[in-house]
């Protein structure tokens, strides 16, 4: 089984302006949403208390709210979590209250109404810890980008590095935009997913770059556009194959992995789709725009290498 018979010859570079428009729209929409709606930060970043409880049967949220209101917890967010018998309660940080005590109060209030309530999860993050996590998360993102930038400059050529990084920023921005637009919970695991998306998307980009470099060295008398097209065509079936297998397992994680891992797998699914697109259309286009040429990629010492390469073993 294969995606196509014979050699592919799709003019990807010819579509680069369409891709540019599409990417611009997505990025601008994402930034607009991030600026106006912001992210629905989880308690990992904002601080606060989260209590997940399970009831023996389906429960009405209004009842849960009234039980909490009786204990003077009015400013809380109550929602079903995965099933109608499970409830997630989020309480913002509260001044003057021994913060770790809040979850105790909440559980006691719920137990008063329904004795069979089961504590499934309690998370409490102090405001200071939340700030630190936000700061560390941002730093981690920047360090990952810098580390990757350095690797590409050393291993390839500087003109490729901005291409790869722009593709990564593109992917991360759109994934975050998606979370902002739909107001999905943005927690610590989503941040980890974003870093994994960076790794994954880069993986794809590198494979394309590797082939571009090889073709620049091997094929004579070809314009950079033709070489890029050729390289993407040669790698496209691999790019799609890997994305498909990765999306298969991620879907399995999303469907069977349980509610706790939902946001994480969703971020990865969105990121992998965008990352696949960007490694085809964004990364090489940027390298092209920065004027990558044959002479940039020629091995310095022996220029005869490409000849032997071509002959094969």
């Amino acid at each position, binding site marked *: 089984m294969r995606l196509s018979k014979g050699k592919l010859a799709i003019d990807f570079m010819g579509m680069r302006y369409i891709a540019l428009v599409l990417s611009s729209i997505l990025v601008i929409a994402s930034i607009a949403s991030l600026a106006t709606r912001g992210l629905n930060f989880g308690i990992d970043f904002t601080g606060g208390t989260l209590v997940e409880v399970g009831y023996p049967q389906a429960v009405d949220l209004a009842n849960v709210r009234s039980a909490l209101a009786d204990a003077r917890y009015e400013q809380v967010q109550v929602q079903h979590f995965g099933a109608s018998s499970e409830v997630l309660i989020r309480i913002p940080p509260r001044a003057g209250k021994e913060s770790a005590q809040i979850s105790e109060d909440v559980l006691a209030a719920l137990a008063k109404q329904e004795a069979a309530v089961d504590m499934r999860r309690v998370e409490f993050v102090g405001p200071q810890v939340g700030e630190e996590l936000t700061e560390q998360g941002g730093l981690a993102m920047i360090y990952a980008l810098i580390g990757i930038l350095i690797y590409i400059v050393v291993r390839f050529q500087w003109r490729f590095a901005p291409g790869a990084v722009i593709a990564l920023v593109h992917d991360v921005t759109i994934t975050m935009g998606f979370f902002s637009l739909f107001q999905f919970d943005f927690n610590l695991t989503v*941040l980890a997913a974003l870093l994994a998306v960076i790794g994954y998307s880069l993986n794809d980009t590198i494979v394309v770059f590797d082939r571009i470099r090889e073709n620049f060295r091997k094929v004579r008398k070809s314009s950079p556009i033709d070489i890029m097209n050729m390289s993407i065509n040669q790698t496209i079936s691999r790019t799609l194959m890997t994305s498909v297998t990765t999306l298969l*397992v991620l879907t399995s994680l999303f469907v069977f992995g349980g509610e*706790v891992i939902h946001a994480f797998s969703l971020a990865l699914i969105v990121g992998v789709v965008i990352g696949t697109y960007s490694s085809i259309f964004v990364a090489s286009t940027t390298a092209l725009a920065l004027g990558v040429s044959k002479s940039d990629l020629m091995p310095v010492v022996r220029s005869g290498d490409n000849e032997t390469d071509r002959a094969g073993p």
Partner: protein
Amino acid sequence: MNRYPLWKHILLITVIVVGCIYALPNLYGEDPALQISGVRQAEVDDTVSATVARVLGDAGIGIKLLERGEGKIMVRFEDTETQLKAADYVKAALGTDYVVAFNLAPATPAWLTSFNALPMYLGLDLRGGVHFLMEVDMQAAGKQAIERYTTEIRTLLREEKIRYALLRAEQAGVRVVFRSEEDRARAESLLRKNFPTLVTESAETTGKPEFTTRPSEQETRETQQFALQQNILTLRNRVNELGVAEPVIQQQGASRIVVQLPGVQDPGQAKRILGATATLEYRAVDIEHDLERAIAGKVPAGSRLYRERKGGHVLLKKSVIATGDQIVNARSGFDSMSGSPMVSVTLDAKGARSMLRFTKENVGKPMAVVFIENRSETKIVDGEPVKRPVKVEEVVSVATIRDVFSSRFQTTGLDSSREAQELALILRSGALAAPIEIVEERTVGPSLGKDNIRQGFNSVMIGFCVVLVFMALYYRVFGLVADLALTLNLVLIVAILSMLQATLTLPGIAGIVLTVGMAVDANVLIFERIREELRNGNSPQASIHAGYEKALSTIADANITTLIAAIVLLSFGTGPVKGFAVTLSIGILTSMFTAIFGTRAVINLVYGGRRRVAQLMI
């Protein structure tokens, strides 16, 4: 050319065998067990294990296995119900000198444990339990040091007969105001001699000679470090008293402590006990002066007005008979006369001497027990949360001394038997050197833990099977070879996690799932390259060779960049993120081995031996 030398086959087979052995213990599951360990001097020896065996035998409770480990006994049972029932009997038989904790003991067969092969360590989100991050209030530690110096300097100046107008603890240090310049000079030289680490600054703010003295910065740092270490020690004692198997108590950063308690069912109790700073003090009641006048504001020098827990006030002498840190043992129980909850206390030699002297001279007079608690209270000042240490002091009981006593006696007046139990536990485990506050909590109930394991396992297996089928359909024979590699990859990830005894968390499982999807990437790269070579008209053998050769650098490049991201995640690593990063990094490394080296070995076996291969099934 498509043949591997013998040593490569041997290497591969060795890796497979070792991988299987170390991954195997994970298939056996765990037995519900009780872990019995001694508190303080109590030894866990043959008599204890004999007692346990006898008690359970008498009660008709079946034991699966009883083992003696280093300083502990592990008793395994068939199911959790028996375990729960057995715990009651064992606790009753052994008393408070032993801690009986619920545990899950790996049911790994002996031949595997002889290789040191153990199952993966499950994280709190999978087995259920409590994770606390606690912040030690360093400001309070500094304040306590200044208060201690205040007392010491006061005593020193009195002994040396140096008169002062004012001596008190302030934010900046101990402030002393003198009546004459000469007194100040004498005091300063005394301080230099007796407390060389203090930094003294003179001032004349009120027109009188004065100075403020405080511990040097280095000493403050040492005090804080000591407070942290002391707190870790105290927390460890308290956790031991709580009866938790395999707890983790570690320093994190300059002022924080991580406490992880697997399998704790009541996080509320854990919070109360770990954070408690309660202690007791024994003081004489001032019966010479009038209580009403003291309440009106005229408190006599040498005495202090205290609130009573049951309401009202009582006037106590400032000098202390015995303090909480002189208590070496404490047990809770019920008073034999009144039936009310009590704590029976044992004092150390110093405390006992002082108590003996006092009771000898004061039979028939009242003595008070003061309950002291240090808490941090957060108040919002100008929109910013500000922490402030608060000291709560209450008199829990005033009793008439009927007889002379020294080291052992009882304290009543507590609210409930639970309070008595917890107070006894806290007194036994020692005081916290500085108040602590929980700044992060992650608790997972046992039911969610079980769900997480089940769902995590399902998503790995389903994702894995789907990829297997997909690869086999798409690449046929080569796809099946890639499937073998993927299976080996999964075994190796589990084996390495087990060998490292790394903690497996739910995000860690997610990392494994992601690796399963991405691990085939290397094979896809190679196989696509082989197809390409075939299309270019190369012979099957040459295509296989070229496919592996050419894809290699691409695979390395692609994986190294993913590894960079994973390592950043690892160093960023707080709990949930770290687990993901660990499995992802391990998965990347093992997948390179299995996808390149492993598949090549099998492909070589299938195709390499033949002279002519008409067609590749790819």
